[in-house]
């Protein structure tokens, strides 16, 4: 069918149809590839869009509720783990009360880090060195 079209289109431009026929499958492949990529790109942009938009429109308050629950439990978990670790270290090494003191404060830092991370202010673990280096000392104060 492609040949027929080429013949119809270029009866007098024989020089052009030759390379055109050769190039056509390539072009078509390219075209397909390009279109697929474009589709993927649009899908990729639309996917989070659609979901966030839908959720935001439908229930921004429930999202906020979930977010609040998430943040508070992240914070408390950091402190709890810090205190637990400190207590266990005290118990084993007999360094009462210092392990508890130091690790509770470290756990506090970890809790803040958890909150920042799940709020999306600090990038994920290991990401964005500059951000983190800037944020870290601030947190220790």
């Amino acid at each position, binding site marked *: 069918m492609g040949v027929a079209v080429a013949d119809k289109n270029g009866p007098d431009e024989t020089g052009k149809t030759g390379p055109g026929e050769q190039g056509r499958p390539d072009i078509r492949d390219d075209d397909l590839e390009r279109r697929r990529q474009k589709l993927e790109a649009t899908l990729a942009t639309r996917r989070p869009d659609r979901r966030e938009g839908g959720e935001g429109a439908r229930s921004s308050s*429930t999202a906020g509720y979930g977010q609040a629950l998430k943040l508070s439990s992240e914070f408390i978990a950091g402190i709890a783990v810090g205190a637990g670790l400190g207590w266990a270290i005290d118990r084993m090494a007999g360094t009462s009360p210092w392990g508890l003191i130091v690790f509770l404060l470290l756990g506090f830092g970890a809790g803040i880090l958890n909150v920042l991370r799940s709020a999306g202010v600090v990038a994920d673990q290991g990401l964005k060195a500059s951000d983190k*280096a800037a944020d*870290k000392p601030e947190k220790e104060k």
Partner: protein
Amino acid sequence: MANDPIHQFQIAKWIPIEIGGLDFSFTNSSAFMVATVGAAGAFLFLTTSSRGLIPSRLQSVSEMSYEFVASMLRDAAGSQGMKFFPFVFSLFMFVLVANLLGLFPYFFTVTSHIIVTFALALLVIGTVVVYGFMKHGLAFLKLFVPQGVPAVLAPLVVLIEVISFLSRPISLSVRLFANMLAGHITLKVFAGFVTSLSALGFVGVAGSILPLLMTVAITGLEVLVAFLQAYVFAVLTSMYINDAIHPGH
């Protein structure tokens, strides 16, 4: 006692089994876990078995749940994370169906026991750690050392990162457990108001309409919370899996 809000969480041994001094009894909790798995599996299997090109209503529900989890995992962990899709999807369906089953009156809520949620969270973190070490070896430990931290601060930062990592299973499990527990206790307390008020005669019955309305409203909220908590659990799981796949960047 009928009005005890904690009574619904008690574990009853249905078939006592003891092997080597360890208690392997088949309890009501295990029964409802089996029911959860059975309900989720049967639902997914039966609704998709017709394989209609134009999905029926129930088939589109299971396709939606598949799509939902798949896009969530792809967003969080990239296409490499899709090999964990069966894991995340099973977790999501288990938590969701367990939460929803628990909303039926007289049913046991599996996820309202911290040992269950903590076991699930440990499964997630264990998968992350094992897969991370298998794939990256010791380079997985770079997860705890953010780049560009001054050498003076590094030990402190590493300690904080380690604690932050350890706090993940805790927060994952406590969040689910606390939400289910608190929701069910609230529900029970308000429902208890209805019965104890209506014992007071006509005025009590009239007054008990308010807690009854509250109970209805809280039930609606609990359905929402059941979805929300399953969603949060799955989202965090896929985020942690992302850490296992790409620790360094």
